[in-house]
């Protein structure tokens, strides 16, 4: 087997299934809010509003466009089921704080960005917010098959080109050394 054939066989084995799965998930996530498996839609939108302050959509895609909320929903439905209570109580506490700070507001999603930032400063040391940060970053940067990083926008943001093969030079300094 030549190197090229090896490369192609590896490509068909690994990345095509990744891509197929990612597309399916992204598609179902886009179709409707019914794509949530665990979270109630209203709660999902509130959590998403907080995630959108962790990785904001400021000119380039953030947590919202990456679909991090779908990663979180999947986490709470499957591998992090035991963390549901942290979300439940954490979200309730965040709502309470919102009502205290901004009595006219109705929802977290309805807050101005500056208001949301002020609210998060008050909860950033809580177990809930730390977990939400972890999940949001994971969702932004995991393979799309896990529900987030839709369209690989997280990888695009950090400058990671996902390919099965590269050739040197890889960066500026090894290129300049040639």
């Amino acid at each position: 087997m030549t190197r090229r054939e090896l490369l192609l066989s590896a490509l068909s084995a690994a990345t095509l299934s990744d891509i197929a799965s990612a597309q399916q998930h992204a598609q179902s996530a886009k179709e409707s809010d019914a794509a949530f498996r665990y979270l109630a839609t209203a709660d999902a939108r509130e959590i998403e509003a907080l995630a959108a302050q962790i990785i904001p959509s400021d000119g380039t895609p953030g947590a919202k466009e990456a679909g991090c909320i779908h990663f979180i929903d999947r986490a709470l439905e499957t591998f992090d089921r035991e963390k549901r209570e942290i979300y439940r109580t954490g979200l309730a506490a965040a709502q309470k704080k919102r009502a205290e700070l901004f009595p006219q507001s109705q929802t977290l999603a309805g807050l101005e960005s500056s208001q949301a930032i002020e609210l998060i400063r008050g909860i950033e040391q809580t177990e809930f917010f730390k977990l939400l940060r972890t999940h949001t970053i994971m969702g932004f940067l995991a393979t799309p098959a896990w529900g987030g990083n839709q369209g690989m926008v997280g990888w695009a943001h950090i400058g990671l080109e996902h390919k099965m093969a590269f050739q040197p030079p890889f960066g500026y300094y090894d290129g300049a050394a040639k």
Partner: protein
Amino acid sequence: MIRYKPSEVVDFIVIGSGAAGGVVAKELSTAGFSVVVLEQGPYIKEKDFNHDEFGVGFQHDISNNPKLQPNTFRTNASEAATLGQRYNYGRLVGGGSVHFTANYWRFHPDDFRERSVFGDVPGSSFSDWPVTYDELEPYYTKAEWELGISGLAGSNPFDGPRSRPYPLPPLPVKSSGVLFERATKKLGLHPFPAPMAVLSQPYLGRGACVHCGWCETFGCEMRAKSSTLASVIPMAEKTGRCEIRSGCYVRRIQSNAAGRVTGAVYFDSRRREVFQKSRAVVLSANGVESAKLLLMSASKRFPNGLANSSGMVGKNFMWDLGGLVSGLFDHPLNEYKSVQVSRVIHDYYAADPKRGFYGGAGIDARFDWFPITFGLDGLPPDAPKWGADYKKMLGNYFTHTFSTLSHNTSLSVETNMVDLDPSVKDSWGLPAPRLTFQLHPDDVKNAEWVQKRQVEILEAAGATKIWTYPLDDVGISTHLMGTMRMGNDPARSVVNRFNRAHDIPNLFIVDGSSLVTSGRQQPTATIQALAYRAAEAAAEAAKKGEL
């Protein structure tokens, strides 16, 4: 592949198919013996591997899952041990050799006689090895040529003599390697191309590395990483005498009244108990799992566990010590491409009494961050944790950062150990290993001293920002060494100089557990050299009818 019946008495059972077990299985089966390899994890291959950081790194796809196999940890015997993952191993056919970074340097000649060279270190069980570098040299060479190692012989002035060069040239230098090489030369040091268990060119029917970058913690889809799965296990199977039986979790090594082992009892993948008979057993399950199994295999004749008349099983546990220092650079490095490491120094490897403590380190230039780990922990500790500024830094730093990782000595201390937790059980109802580990004061001083050297290197490399990580948390150990130490004195060691148990003539223990000292970490080459040598001794003993 051949299938043996459990009732059939095979020549050898090999418990574990990793760096050591894979080598032993190949050596024994090609020498004509019947071999059953019992592996806890699944038999998956390159077509099953992927670049799924979340699955591999966080869901334990190819490593031990602490939800199923918990451990407890304490720093000393008077403390109550608490739950929390503290050790990691590859849990699939090929074991840790599948997911390791693939740094593949030899220990130095002085590593084997370092107690004599340096002197005693109070509060430790620091000892010379019962083997010398010269005795191991042919086996290092054999490992390098049979498994496929890329490197440049003679480029590391601190290396011991070698009988052959590496079979393959080094992998291409990365931007981190160029900057590291420039900086260390400026400091009067001696950088060299990293010896890697990754093929720089096609070799023995396997393809060369395509620089995808997903090596550490991942399996290689190209068979370019020289794991035992990619290299020697197929050779073992080709003999028609070696069965790789995966999904088999050994719970007991059976022994008889005559003091010999007779086989192994395991849970198969459906959790049914099976007893496989054998003439001899090679235990290669890693420094924690092997100790656990010996302690679980106590019998009337061996009330303190198998091979434990010395009381040394599980003792002298050495940890994977080292520190990371990161630097930011003006231009893109794109370190996520290609193997993690391309340049190394051994200038600080030798311990120097003038420093006022025992210790030393190898230091490499690397980027062993992947997107999620970098997003969570890769930025400087004073960086914002969320928000627009966090996002901006993340976008810039991922491609502009590289780290130096030090690989530090871990002194052997008898009270650092693995034993069985008295109450916590795993998902199969077996006792969880309890890890007791505390840094020796010299380990602490060494880590602080080495960290300063790493900062100097990044400064000389022109980093615009440099940041370190705390040294007091030893984290999760991935090099599991020392728990069944090798020695000539049966009262102070578990195996002899050929990895044969002092107490039980037909039991060999061949993995990181037999290491007397930690070298400067990166123990895989030495574990595999010992495995080739031990397999030869086991085959000779079997031919003489001793087993």
